[in-house]
């Protein structure tokens, strides 16, 4: 493990290597022109190593609801995307892709109509009554059914219709304006005419300390830190708590912000909720009641649709009837393999610390901190509690022994096991109880680049200069460590 030493602002010693090989691959593949007929789309998969550059040369086109600017070079790396055109267009494509083809059969007509139907709920005089009928849309479906893409489309169209809905990401597997393992919400529709299609994740950026030409949005972030979601057990408790908390924040925002109020919210969910397995319906129920969802869009699963129709058709206590719709999955959805998802996660983490677009290269700092400065909690694992003795410098024996019986979180001292993983800094004091910890929003993330157990010192990669906030931190079991982030 290389020791990065003290903070070296601006040196960017950790800048990722691609620049050298990307020029060669881009040069090797000649630019090609692709003509798209009206209502067809160009689907491509750009690899993580060599970018694909696409320019809209004529006509109009959009990526997941966000319109492309004419004659601007868009660079895609590690993304699986589709450029759709309503009116026909020509594209110039440079670079090599892992796969690319043109498809004519798309569900875009229905997706766009969903947007217009939501627009009717948003606008209109007849719905002015206290915003009660504002669309609060939940998108559910199994993995790789195109949920996030649909959410982006609905958000993109809403922005282009002059709306500013809240977009909520409950999918811990991919972050939105944050790292994987987090849940977040943001108001879209400021400044630029859509989302940032080039950014890792395809949303945009959370604020940085300088100017940015891209799409910048202010998220509120909560840390979940587990790979899977479940309804029971400590993870389930944390997940439910976070959903409740996030819903509270979103609802308060929606209530108070006139501009947001009318537009409602759009909620993305993890694939597990759409898997029709185990407790997934309970979890959908939880989200529906917390966010007062009134439109559920099910993607690519008849079974899910039927179950939800049954479940919500006879709901008494809700004044708002819930409209449940079944949408077909786009033929462009691809099953993303584990390796791809992992590199996507790593890209997101890297982009949180270092930025992605060439115009906004970010400079994180490395700080050496004493063990005593840090107050790190982790989710108590009832099964592992008995094994604490085997963990190298693991769980604080005292706390674990006395509190872990009922406690959700246990305090841990830094150990080598934390190497390369992320710590979430919470908006709550260092010493906090379970209730506070599980509900606090996130200040930011730091990356553990080294742990010196002998000297009781940790080396952290911190996105922001200055002292590391004296706050409670959560060490999650997920996302997995990124070995090559630093050095």
């Amino acid at each position, binding site marked *: 493990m290389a020791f990065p030493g003290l903070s070296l602002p601006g040196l960017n010693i950790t800048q990722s290597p691609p620049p050298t090989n990307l020029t060669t691959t881009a040069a090797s593949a000649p630019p090609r022109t692709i003509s798209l007929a009206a209502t067809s789309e160009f689907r491509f998969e750009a690899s993580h190593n060599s970018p694909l550059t696409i320019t809209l040369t004529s006509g109009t086109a959009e990526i997941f609801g966000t319109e492309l600017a004419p004659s601007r070079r868009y660079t895609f790396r590690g993304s699986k995307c589709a450029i759709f055109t309503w009116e026909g267009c020509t594209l110039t494509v440079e670079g090599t892709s892992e796969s690319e083809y043109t498809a004519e059969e798309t569900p875009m007509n229905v997706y766009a109509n969903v947007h217009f139907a939501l627009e009717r709920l948003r606008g209109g005089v*007849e719905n002015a009554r206290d915003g009660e009928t504002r669309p609060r849309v939940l998108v559910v479906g199994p993995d790789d059914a195109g949920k996030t893409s649909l959410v982006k489309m609905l958000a993109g169209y809403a922005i282009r219709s002059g709306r500013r809905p809240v977009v909520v990401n409950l999918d811990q597997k991919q972050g939105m304006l944050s790292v994987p393992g987090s849940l977040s919400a943001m108001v879209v529709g400021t400044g630029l005419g859509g989302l940032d299609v080039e950014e890792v994740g395809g949303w945009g950026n*959370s604020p940085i300390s300088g100017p*940015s030409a891209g799409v910048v949005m202010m998220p509120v972030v909560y840390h979940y830190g587990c790979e899977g979601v479940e309804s029971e057990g400590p993870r389930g408790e944390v997940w439910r708590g976070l959903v409740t908390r996030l819903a509270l924040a979103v609802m308060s925002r929606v209530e108070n912000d006139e501009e947001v109020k009318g537009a409602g919210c759009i909620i993305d969910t993890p694939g597990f909720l759409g898997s029709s397995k185990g407790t997934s319906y309970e979890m959908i129920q939880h989200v529906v009641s917390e966010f007062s969802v009134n439109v559920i869009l099910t993607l690519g699963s008849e079974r899910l649709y039927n179950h939800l129709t049954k479940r919500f058709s006879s709901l008494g206590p809700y004044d708002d009837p819930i*409209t449940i719709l079944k949408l077909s999955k786009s033929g462009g959805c691809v099953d993303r393999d584990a390796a791809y998802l992992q590199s996507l996660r790593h890209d997101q983490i890297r982009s949180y610390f270092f930025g992605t677009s060439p115009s906004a290269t*970010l400079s994180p700092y490395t700080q050496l901190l004493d063990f005593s400065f840090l107050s790190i909690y982790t989710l108590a694992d009832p099964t592992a509690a008995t094994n604490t003795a085997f963990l190298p410098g693991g769980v604080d024996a005292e706390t674990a022994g006395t509190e872990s019986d009922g406690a959700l979180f246990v305090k841990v001292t830094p150990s080598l096991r934390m190497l390369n993983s992320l710590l979430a800094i919470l908006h709550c004091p260092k010493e906090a109880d379970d209730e506070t910890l599980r509900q606090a929003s996130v200040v930011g993330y730091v990356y553990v680049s080294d742990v010196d157990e002998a000297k009781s010192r940790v080396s952290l990669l911190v996105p922001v200069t200055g002292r590391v906030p004296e706050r409670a931190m959560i060490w999650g079991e997920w996302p997995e460590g990124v070995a090559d982030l630093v050095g």
Partner: protein
Amino acid sequence: MASHSAEVAADFRDALQDLKINSRPEISNLTVIAKENTEHAQAISRELENHIRLTRPEWKLPALYVLDSIVKNVGTPYTVYLGRNLFRTFMEAYTLVDPGTRKAMEGLLKTWKLPVPESLDTRPVFSAEVTREIENALIKFRTVTIQHQQQQARNQRQPYGQLPARPPQQPQYRESPTPNPQGPYGYPIPPQKTTEPPRSPVPRYLSPAHQGIPSASRQPYLPPSTAPPPDIGRIKDTLKQIILSATMEVSQRPADERARSLLTTLLSLQKVLESGSLAPDQIRQVEGEIQRISGALLPRTSTPSVPTHFAPAPAPTQSAPPVALPFPFPPPAAASSQRATPQPSQPPTMDLSQLLRQFNPTPASAPSQARPPPQPANDLLASLRAAGLLGGGRATPEPSAQPQLQTAPLNDVKLDPVSLKISRPNLIRLLYSARPDQCRECARRFPATEEGKKRKTRHLDWHFKTNMRIADTSKSVISRSWYIDEREWIDYRESDDTSSDKGSGSSKAKKPDPKDQYVPVPTDASLANAHCPICQEKFDAQWHEETQQPVWFDAMHIGGRIYHASCYAELSKASGMGAGGAGGRAGGSNIAASNTARSTPDPILGKRKWHAGAE
């Protein structure tokens, strides 16, 4: 396999048995079953056909809706299986149901001739042969009904055959143009005294011998009336009225060639209609034309019904006033093309399509002007206006009507599966050409209005400033900001660069002086929740567009702490502390300076401003 098939079919049958009303969830449920069991399509189709045949007349329509839903949402192989017996299934049900249901069934049939909405497949739901067969039968059926009624009126209680009162197993259209595999059904043909050749026998099962069927279903046969068949009669009536008003037009303006030619066309059309030699789809075509003409022509004396279609939308905003339209709502473009294109059919006594074309004074060969949205009534309005039938000044001039339709098309999309499938290019245009003024840098669009222009200018300014600032700060160090707390997020308001001029709008700071000062929100989380030491209140975080960072307005660093600038100004005044001194000390606040050294120099600018303002 076979047993499994039977099982699925039995399940399906059970579900069908419960279907007694037009209930969308149940119908979609059945559709889902059908969709998930396409390998048993044959069994399911048979089940459905049997059910439609055997169930009580008032439950037939929901079952037909199931059929409709399956063929439209699942398609093959159901279209194949159900298409084979569709004629039988449809006609048998048709003969037994009440007039209201018949209307609904005719509506269904109409949609079967069109492609499935949304689908790219342009073929109709059922092939033209299947639907035409049914249509021909329907025409005959109506004729027969009328004749039957007339005859019934003549010989009031004439005894009919003594066949048992049960639903017929075979349809009885002996003379139907398509070969009827079942062959003729032997029953006495009552002699007809009408001018019609005796080719349309009265089917036996139309007789009042249907004792078991509720009276509602017998309704059409009960009151003997001399009224002509509904559609042709109505067409003729309308045509008469049109001819009347056209004649008046001609008599008022004898010199008007066009009105005269229209009148001749109308008269010859009447002749064709009277001869009764038209195929059903031709009649429909004629009907369409006549409705369009009558819509434009007749209202001149009453309320203008066609122009309400173009009801002036005063504010062409992004969202059109939602109007609930009856379901199903046919796409206007499809409807118009259906009507406008002469359909190939058996040659009638006159070339109907040519006749219809005469309604449009422009030569038929000349390509019609490229109009963005094909509006059904427009062609006719234009031609009628050209023909002088519509007063020039009275109707909305076309040029003004067109843009209105473009900017505020009707958003009629409902959150139901059928409505979502209809293609609506007009609404898509809202996302594109309705706001033609596009930013070249980020593709954001602005409406082509004064306000839109202003907004775009501000937007471009923002791009320019941001790019300048990026160039300026290219050497300085930029880092990710901390996320804000949930409470701050709830109160946080993003400002839109184009919404208004700086200072007003979302920011509450109105006074130009101390409130204009700002401090970037401290990156240190402990400081980020700091209170103003004077008023003990928290600072409001807002997004600062110029520096692209969250800031606290009305705040300043003094000696390492952050104060509300206004509080501090008041305090300095009260205590007689010189502003210069404060400024000096502020300049010496090294902690603050070091804390923000990495960021833009704006905070210092802010201080200077305050300094100057205070002196």
